[in-house]
Structures are given as C-alpha cells and as structure tokens.
C-alpha cells in the first residue's frame, strides 16, 4: 500500500533533501509491515465485522459451538436439522469478529524535536504512528489521531475510509514539534473500549498519562505506550555542555564527564521504573530507539498483543 505524498514531502523531494522520513523510507516501512496483524488484547465488543475477536457470538458463518436453547434465545438461531436428528433444541453459536477503533496519541512537544539538527525523535514517532495506523487500517479498524504540541491539539477522529492513513501521515508531517503541553488532557475525551497507542518520550506528565491510560484500560480499552528514546539521550556526547530542557529553559544542568555516569544511571532507573509502572497496570509498554527501524517497533507493538513482543535489543535489559 503506497500512501500519497504530502505537499511537504514533494517539496523536499523537489529540493533534493533526503532524510529519515523520505517517501521512500515511508514506503519501505509500509512494505515491511505488510501482513502484520495487530490483534486486540482482549475480545472486543464492536458490532461491525472486523478482524478482532468479538465478545458477541451470533450468526457468523464460522461455527463455534452449539448451546442448548434457553428461553429467550432467538428461535431463528435454533439448528433445525440437529433438532430433527436428535430431537433436542440447540442453537448454533459462531465467533463474531469485530473492529476496534485505534487512536494514536502522538506527543509533539519540544522534547520530541531532538536532536534539533535531525529531529530524530519526532520522525521516529511519525514513522511508528504511520506504521501502526497502517497495520490497524489493514484490519479494517478505524484509525484516528491526536497530536499534542505547544501550538495546541490536532485531532483526527477514527475513520475507516480509504486513505485515512495518508491523511494521518500528512497531518503528522504538517506538525512541527515545539512548546510544552500535557498529554493527559488529550486522553480525557477518549471513550472506553478503544485502542490507544501513545507515542511519546514521556518526559512530560508521564504519571498523569499513565493514570489516564489505566482508566481507559479499566473501562475496557486497550492502551499501548511507545516510548521514543533518542540515541543521544542514551549516550550523550562526551563534551562538556550545559544541558537545557527544551520545554523548560530554567532547567539547565552542566553535563560534564563527572556527571555522565550519574546521568546514565538515573535515566536507566527512570526508564525501568516507567516500564514497570505501565506493565503493573496491565498496559503495554514498548521502548523504541530512534535508530531502530520503525517497522521493527511496529512489529514489536503488534506482537505484544500476541504475547510475542520483545523489547528493543539495546534496551531490553533496562525495561525488564
């Protein structure tokens, strides 16, 4: 499936600029995730036919089991042939498959615009988001988008229509990550029984987001946390510099050789604590390095639903 180029991509292509989110890279990503399924973690309650197991068992062509007719069952569902053969009234049950709305909540605050020269975190977030949207849309799931940046919040409600993935990609490409804004309020209007994928570095209101995600999960929803981490954050430059938080200029810390070890230790501990806190509440947590191919991240997120998801090799130990 090849998504149409956005105007910005065409402009970049015309100027000969190439980067990690070039159309070819996006196309190769979509090619790499073709056939990947992203099943719901639990049976969904949707009525529309889809690719996920539904909690409803009805008149689907695929037989699941027979059940003795009880009062109140629809007589139309009685298997008359079986009744004729065994003189017992059974109703025919079938496993329904339904769709699940998937909402991608993407963090576009200033912390995602890092490294400032390549915007690697933001591009990785976009690629992972588009990949997840494509996988969900392949299962005929409605796909929506919420982008939270310092400029405000942009929202695309979940849609199943053709080309929704392209719209999502264009919407993401039109956003420039900057400013500071909390993610949790963006999740307050999420209705229950929906699949939410949060793509963020969780350097903002991580606790509030996790708390709101737990509420969504408790209401029957499904929440996936995709933690984007830049390689420069895992291995900062060796030179001495004054590290300034892009979202809080008052937060400046001298980064010298003596502080490096302490930084690495604190950052690793925070990541472990973050992963543990999400998993304790039964939420899916996946860490993704910027240098890691987006297709691999998508497969890992989708595999988490099947119980085969693995953490990124480089950060596996840290997220256990």
């Amino acid at each position, binding site marked *: 499936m090849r998504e149409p180029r956005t105007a910005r991509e065409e402009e970049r292509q015309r100027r000969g600029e190439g980067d990690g989110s070039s159309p070819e890279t996006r196309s190769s990503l979509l090619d790499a995730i073709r056939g990947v399924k992203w099943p719901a973690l639990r049976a969904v309650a949707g009525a529309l036919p889809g690719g996920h197991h539904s909690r409803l068992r009805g008149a689907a062509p695929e037989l699941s089991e027979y059940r003795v007719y009880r009062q109140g069952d629809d007589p139309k569902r009685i298997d008359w042939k079986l009744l004729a053969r065994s003189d017992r009234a059974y109703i025919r049950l079938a496993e329904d498959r339904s769709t699940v709305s998937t909402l991608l909540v993407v963090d576009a605050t200033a912390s995602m615009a890092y490294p400032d020269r390549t915007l690697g975190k933001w591009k990785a977030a976009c690629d992972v988001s588009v990949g997840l949207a494509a996988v969900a849309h392949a299962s005929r799931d409605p796909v929506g988008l919420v982008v939270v940046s310092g400029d405000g919040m942009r929202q695309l409600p979940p849609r199943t229509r053709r080309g929704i993935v392209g719209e999502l990609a264009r919407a993401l490409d039109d956003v420039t990550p900057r400013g500071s804004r909390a993610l949790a309020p963006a999740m307050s209007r999420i209705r229950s029984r929906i699949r939410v994928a949060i793509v963020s570095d969780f350097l903002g209101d991580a606790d509030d987001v996790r708390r709101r995600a737990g509420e969504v999960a408790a209401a029957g929803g499904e929440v996936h946390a995709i933690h984007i981490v830049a390689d420069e*954050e895992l291995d900062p430059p060796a030179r001495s510099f*004054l*590290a300034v938080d892009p979202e809080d200029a008052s937060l400046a810390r*001298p980064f*010298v050789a003596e502080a490096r070890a302490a930084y690495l230790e604190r950052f690793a501990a925070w990541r472990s604590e973050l992963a543990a806190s999400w998993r304790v509440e039964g939420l899916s947590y996946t860490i993704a390095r910027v240098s890691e191919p987006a297709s691999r991240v998508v497969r890992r997120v989708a595999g988490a639903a099947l119980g085969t998801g693995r953490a990124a090799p480089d950060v596996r130990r840290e997220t256990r």
Partner: protein
Amino acid sequence: MSFAAPLFAWVGGAIALGVVALHLLAWRRPPTSPLPTARFAPDAPVRTVAPAVRPTDLLLLAVRVLAIILVSAALAGPRFPSRIHGLGRVIVVDRSHGSEAWAYIDRAARSIYRAGDALVLFDSAARAVRRPTVDSIVAASPTRASGGMSAAMVVAIRAANELQRVRDSVEIVVVSPFGSDAFDGATASIRRVWPGTVRTMRAGTSANDTARTRPLDVRAQSGDPVAVALSLDGAALVGAVRVVRDSATAGDTAWARQGGAVVVWPSGPAQWNARPAGDTAFGVTVSTLVWGSPGMPARSATVVAPFVRRAAPPPGRVVARWDDGDPAATEIPLGAGCMRSVAVTVPPAGDLALTPAFRRFAEQLAQACLGAHAWAAASDSDVETVLPGTTARGAQQTLSVSDTTRRDSAVVRWLLAAALAALVAELVMRRGTANATA
C-alpha cells in the same frame, strides 16, 4: 639594567605567569545544548572550569600582567648603569681672529678630540656641531670676527648638559688663544652656571702676563695727581700710550703718527678754546674706550666732583663729556695713532685723584686709540679668573653614587605610579567586562 633585589623580579614574573595561566583556565558557562533528559543530570553549579581555547579579554590580561610586572620591578629596585664610563668632553674651539693662530688651535683641538665628544665652534657667535668628528674641526675655517667667549660658554654648557646624560663625567675644554676681547662681563657668570670642570687650552699665543706691567709713559711734574692716579691703578694698558701733562711736542706728534696714543691732559690752563670764567661742572663721564680686559671688563667711568672748566677740547671724536653734554675730551686720529685732548682740570690739591672713580676715569682715558686697538692675549691669571677649572658648587654636584640613587629612586616612584594606574585601569576594564557580560 640590574636589580637591587632580583628576587622580587623573579617572584613577579612567576605571579604574572600564574595570572596568564588562570586567565586561560577561565570560569565560564559551557556551551548550551538542548537535551530533553537534562533533568537526569546531577544538579551542580552551572559554571565550570574549562580551558579557554580562544582566550578572551586579552587587553585585560595585558593590563593585569603589566601591573604585576611594574610592581615587581619597582620592588626589585632597578638600576641603570647605562652611562658610558669615562670622561665626556665638550671641545670649544675658537676660530676667531683669522688664521694666525688657527693652525695651532686646529692641531690642539684634534689632539684632544675623541669619538663621542661634543664640539662647539665659535667666533662672534657659537654653534654646536651635530654628530661631530675630527673632520668637523678640520672643516672649520677661521674667521676675522672677534671671539665671543660668553656665547661659546652658553652653547658649550648646553652641550655638556646633554652629554652628561650618557657620561659619567663631563668637562668643557676651551681651545683658544684667549684674546682679551673674547671676554665680557657675562663670561664669568656664565661659567658659574656649569658646575663641572672647564679646562682651558691656550693655542697660538703665549700668555700676555707682561703687558699689564709695562710702565706708564707719563710726562708730568712730580706729584701730579693724574700721574699718581695712573700709577696707583696699575694701569691696565694695552698698546702704546703716552700721557703728557703739559702741551704736546713735535716729538709727541711724531710718536703718535707711528701708532701711539698721546693723551694731552694739561695740568694748567690749556691753549684750546677758552670757556667763560666761573664755568663749573660737577661730573664728567668717559665713554668706553677699550674692549675690556679679562679682569676688568669695559665700562664707562664717571667722576662726580666740582670741576672748573676753563677750556674746551679741540674738535674731534668725543671720548668724554661733562654732565651737561659738552665735550670734555676728544680724540683726533694722527697718522697710525691719535692725539687725545683732555680738558678736565684736576685740582692739584685734595684727594680727588686718589678716589677709585677718578682712577678708573684716568685709566679709561689712558687707553690706546679707538681706531687702532691692537689685539692682545689675556693673561693666564685673567683666564683663570674668568674660567676657573672647577667651582665650589661643581665639586658638590659631580656625578656620584648619590645621583644614581636619586635617579633610581625616581624610576621606582614612576614604576609604582604606573602600576597604580594599571591597577585602576584593570578595575575599570573588569567592571566594563562584567557589565557587558551581564
């Protein structure tokens, strides 16, 4: 240059190096770089010590180092033995009065001239030769002008003062025939301005120490007041002078024609133009007749006394006048000499002739003819009187260790003042830098 306490200089140099090192290890804010996970870095003071690859505030550093060096140099006590050891001389060469004595003067001057000496040439005017050499003396040509020793001493003292800056000691050497006309009343005073040594070197003439002892040729009766006055004065006579207290004879006239000066000073009533009886004057003044002798420079002489005027001198060049302006003495050229007529009647009685004023008056009148003055060398004693070799003040002001100490102390004061100025400038610049940074 050396130091009295070189340890201070070494310590100052070490401190200056330390200041430079500290300047290069500047406390500064490291370069800012965004890092979203900055919160995980330990909180520490933002300023860090980093070697300044491209040092800034170089002017401030220079001022600091300068202040330290100045203070250390002042404490170390600099000494400046920069003077050239040895004697420096100012050779004053007289090139006046033609070439009679020039060969001797030239030879004498060249014999004493050494490289580095100053050279002053003078006749009626004086000038210092710039970058003199021995050839400068050779190139100098004699002139017919009379010598002016005062002007020469002024220029020589100026040159000596300049030479004193680079020499241990300086003396002025005057090479001259020392004619009596070279001196004037200011010469001795000018000489006293120079505290150092003045050495005289007579060349071309011999000392004229006998001229002043030549006996007077006075024809007068015994006990004549004029003869007595001239004999008491010692009569610094120059040239041939004959004083007659009666009337001039044919022999006197012939003698005058040969270049002598005959002073006809009748003791009684003269045969000249008679004046009204009872004409009395109370003062008579003789103008300058001579060029002046070294010991007694030329000047007018006035006698204040009641004089009975009985006659007026014959017409001629007036050499003395009464107080009312009438001529009292005239001079008439006669051949190579002259005939001087003096119509001043000196009373035979009284002590007028013994007064210094009258003796000077008589001396002035008993000089050679105005137009036939002969050049004569001054005596050594007169030269020594006007240009003494040393002065009492000079003995005290010769260059000595105390002078060097005073000079070095002045240098220390200047160094400390400059260091203070540098420290003030450093303070101002540091505040300016701080304001700019803020």
